[in-house]
């Protein structure tokens, strides 16, 4: 069956059918920013988080593959919650940045990562949400800060396919956090990450790291790839310790990373010049791939614009299919590509979408 792709954009949710031979079809929310999308592989339910700006964050669910959507209460902080500091305002969710499903042994379980940096849990398919206070009440949260947004946020949620009580999450800028007891308690991981934007004696402080995106290998989830603000890192112990990968070319700066579902040595990245210049190096838009754990990288540009390109791929806008053979990515310029043969051959599917926040291969 030809791949189908969900594309969450600044102006609606789209579906690309027939492996890209058909134009993207709107699947709802035309004109509205879709900030996060989830296809729940356990039952085929779709979830779409919106950021309506004036009217706040919203959450919708579809049980008929996007034909109709039902609005659900969005994750929210409890009324009356105290402000962090005197003179500040009490928290309110300003963005649902990522959605994740629990394991097959946790029917109805969903996780939501938000800005400000909070984790919310649902056990009834999004009908009700509860703040995970064990993370929110971490004393070191006072050290977190925003990266690209005013407030810190949770953008990466990796639920261990072998043991759904194990969770690895990433916070910009609040480091990498690990739970082995279904979110009841948390340990700060991310040792070895390095933040060049900090004073010298705090470069290695795990509390203030900016992991732009975390991606775990599904078959070997102890391998966690990290596209960090300051480069590429790999962990072989489930996010506790990382080593920096220095030889990605043309750049190690970017937002997105995709981990091969079966081979923990293989991962893909989409480089830009650097944090202060977020465009492709010399206008050549490429994907980098390592197949040996980061010892070496290939630069893949076949089918991608190699001159005067200004596409940037955000952290959720690169995906790999379940076989590890096809990739998809969408850019802030509104272009969408599919990459066959492990990313060796790219095909433009659309050059006229709204800015792309997320792409996801259909799984069910």
């Amino acid at each position, binding site marked *: 069956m030809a791949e189908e792709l969900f594309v969450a954009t600044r102006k609606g949710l789209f579906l690309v059918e027939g492996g890209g031979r058909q134009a993207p079809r709107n699947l709802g929310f035309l004109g509205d920013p879709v900030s996060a999308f989830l296809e729940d592989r356990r039952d085929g339910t779709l979830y779409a988080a919106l950021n309506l700006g004036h009217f706040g964050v919203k959450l919708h669910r579809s049980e008929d593959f996007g034909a109709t959507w039902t609005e659900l209460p969005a994750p*929210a902080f409890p009324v009356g*919650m105290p402000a962090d500091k005197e003179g500040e305002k009490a928290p309110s969710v300003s963005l649902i940045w990522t959605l994740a499903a629990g394991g097959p042994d946790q029917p109805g379980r969903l996780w939501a990562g938000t800005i400000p940096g909070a984790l919310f849990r649902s056990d009834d398919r999004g009908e009700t949400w509860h703040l995970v206070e064990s993370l929110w009440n971490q004393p070191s949260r006072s050290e977190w800060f925003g990266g690209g947004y005013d407030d810190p946020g949770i953008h990466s949620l990796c639920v261990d396919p072998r043991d759904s009580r194990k969770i690895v999450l990433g916070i910009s800028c609040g480091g990498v956090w690990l739970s082995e007891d279904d979110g009841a308690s948390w340990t700060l991981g991310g040792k070895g990450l390095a933040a060049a934007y900090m004073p010298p004696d705090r470069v290695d402080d795990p509390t203030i790291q900016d992991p732009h995106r975390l991606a775990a290998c599904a078959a070997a989830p102890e391998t966690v790839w990290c596209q960090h603000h300051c480069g590429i890192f790999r962990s072989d112990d489930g996010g506790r310790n990382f080593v920096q990968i220095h030889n990605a070319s043309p750049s190690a700066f970017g937002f997105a990373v995709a981990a091969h579902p079966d081979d923990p040595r293989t991962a893909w990245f989409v480089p830009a010049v650097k944090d202060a210049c977020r465009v492709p190096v010399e206008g050549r838009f490429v994907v980098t791939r390592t197949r040996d754990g980061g010892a070496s990288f290939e630069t893949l540009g076949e089918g991608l614009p190699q001159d005067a390109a200004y596409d940037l791929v955000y952290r959720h806008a690169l995906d790999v299919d379940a076989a590890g053979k096809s990739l998809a990515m969408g850019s802030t310029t509104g272009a969408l590509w599919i990459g066959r043969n492990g990313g060796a051959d790219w095909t433009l599917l659309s050059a006229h979408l709204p800015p792309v926040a997320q792409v996801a291969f259909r799984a069910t």
Partner: protein
Amino acid sequence: MPRVTFTANLQRHLDAPSLEVDGACVGEVLAGVFARKPLLRSYIVDDQGRLRRHVNVFVNSAMIVDRDGLGDTLRADDEVFIFQALSGG
């Protein structure tokens, strides 16, 4: 009792008809609205019940003052208008 009218731009997202709701201040009237239309709450106020930054509330022709506490008082014949600020692209 005060009458509450919502910007037409809300109708794109959910049903928001004009309502007559009892209350001595903006917060009380909106609480009455939200009791009838629970999903409407998060469109108008944030998690803590404060008016959203880009939502404006007018009582007759005057913008309200207390955006966090919604304590601006109302008379029975007042009209409350819920508008959105203009922005976007």
